[in-house]
């Protein structure tokens, strides 16, 4: 059996979540990797990749040409795997539609080549499902599989032509510039909620994030209120994180937020309301005003 893994390359490096997808794909046998846009050399350096399919002509990862291309080579593979990223969730279900396959999203555990565990109901239940499709198409949660190392391999690279896309055209992308680690890859995450009161107060998280080399996240209500941009949202429909340390500041812990962070190793909650649900999943809690606790925490670190 050979699996195909879709790898996302950013700034010349394979994203951590994609390296986790490689680990998952390797469970099925040999692994070929496919890279859209530049970055084939970073993919070729990953140990465990047998062959890299490079599609430099598809720099913008539009789902339509990407899925068309994947469908044209799918018959060579038993499994097609990507990380459960925005890109993976855009492209792989479309590929599944082209191949008339039922995709299996957000896999957190592989039981065997056809049996997978995935969360449902915002992670309040874990479903084990067996697929009868000839080709299994799955996205996997980065937080559930160790990322493969960045180097040590030297796979051959084959270049493929990109299909043309007329119905769907890329216009532009606006990426928020940040020197901080990616949310899904950070060892420490500090997130703010509605209790931060406004966007300016999110700055209070920065000195602590600096000291801990942490990524900064936000609850859905903080994002909905315009305190933080959407890419910072942690939760059922935002980023799923499982860092070593998660610090929740001024957020109540709605079901959909817990779905995105409750697998963190150590959880800290800072909230004025002692009854807030976040305290039920927190290892350490401080009941108090975040505007007093945050400066004190910065000093104590």
């Amino acid at each position, binding site marked *: 059996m050979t699996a195909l893994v879709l790898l996302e390359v950013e700034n010349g490096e394979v994203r951590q979540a994609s390296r986790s997808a490689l680990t998952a794909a390797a469970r099925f046998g040999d692994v070929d990797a496919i890279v859209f846009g530049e970055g084939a050399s970073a993919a070729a350096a990953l140990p465990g990749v047998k062959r890299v399919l490079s599609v430099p002509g598809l720099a913008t990862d*539009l*789902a339509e040409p990407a899925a068309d291309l994947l469908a044209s080579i799918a018959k060579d593979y038993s499994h097609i795997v990507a990380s459960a990223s*925005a*890109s993976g*969730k*855009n492209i792989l*279900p*479309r590929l*599944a*539609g*082209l191949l*008339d*396959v*039922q*995709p*299996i*999203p*957000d896999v957190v555990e592989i039981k065997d080549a056809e049996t997978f565990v995935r969360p*449902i*109901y*915002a992670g*309040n*239940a*874990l479903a*084990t*499902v*067996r*697929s*009868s499709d000839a080709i299994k198409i799955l996205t996997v949660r980065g937080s559930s599989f160790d990322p493969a190392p960045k180097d040590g391999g030297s796979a051959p690279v084959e270049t493929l032509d990109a299909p043309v896309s007329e*119905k*769907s*055209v*890329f*216009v532009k*992308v606006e*990426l*928020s510039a940040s020197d901080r680690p990616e949310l899904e890859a950070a060892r*420490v995450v500090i997130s703010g909620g509605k209790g931060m009161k406004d966007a300016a107060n999110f700055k209070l998280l920065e000195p602590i994030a600096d000291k801990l080399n942490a990524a900064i996240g936000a609850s859905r209500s903080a*994002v909905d209120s315009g305190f933080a941009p*959407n*890419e910072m949202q942690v939760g059922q*429909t935002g*980023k799923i994180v499982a860092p*070593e*340390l998660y610090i929740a500041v001024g957020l109540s812990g709605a*079901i*959909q937020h817990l779905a995105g962070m409750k697998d963190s190793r*150590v*959880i*800290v909650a800072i909230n004025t309301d002692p009854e807030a649900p976040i305290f*039920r*999943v927190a*290892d*350490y*809690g*401080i009941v108090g005003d975040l505007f007093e606790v945050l400066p004190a*925490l910065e*000093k*104590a*670190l």
Partner: protein
Amino acid sequence: MKILVPVKRVVDYNVKVRVAADGSGVETQGLKMSLNPFDEIAVEEAIRLREKGVATEVVVVTIGVQAAQDILRTSMAMGADRAILVKTDDTLEPRAVANALKAIVEREQPGLVCMGKQAIDDDMNATGQILAAKLGWPQGTFASAVTVADGRIEVSREIDGGTEVVSLALPAVVTADLRLNEPRYASLPNIMKARKKPLETLEAADLGVDLASRLTVVSVAEPAERKEGIKLGNAAELVEKLKTEAKVI
């Protein structure tokens, strides 16, 4: 232009479900059911496009049990013009739902399908993409803003690092993310009016499409519970615990 909005009836987002004791699934009996929140956003967006004069008619459709007509009435109370219930007692997977929706699209010939990016019960985030693929239409997933002009729709999409904008030739499928809009509340007069709006019922089996499941549910389990933590008095105590007990900093 007609807009078709597929919607799903799900356990209300405020209700925490319990796993069935025999591990066969989750207990949904007697729980409050609602219009899937992402679908509500899709209904709202379709109505706004009609109010702007971009669309002429908003048709909502659901594939589900007889009781699912309540969410169709909710959608019509918000402002959708008419509704279609494709009746089935089976739980269908996204692939099967997409097959049923494709049949409805072929019948209704909408210029745009606008739907939620995911249902909050199975959390699949797949039906819109599968439908787009089966129709051979372009897709604008995780939409946070849309503009229709000159036979195309420009979609701002929420992606991992920020926002991306794509331009799609119509007809197309758009899936709504949280920030697309804030859905309106249905007023009492509109709820009354919605009772008189047309609701057509079809049998899923009569569509003549493949509704089979490709996944077998082996078991459903509770996730591991976290053990109760401790409350600390101040930040200094916290840092001490994180260093010496949790050894995480």
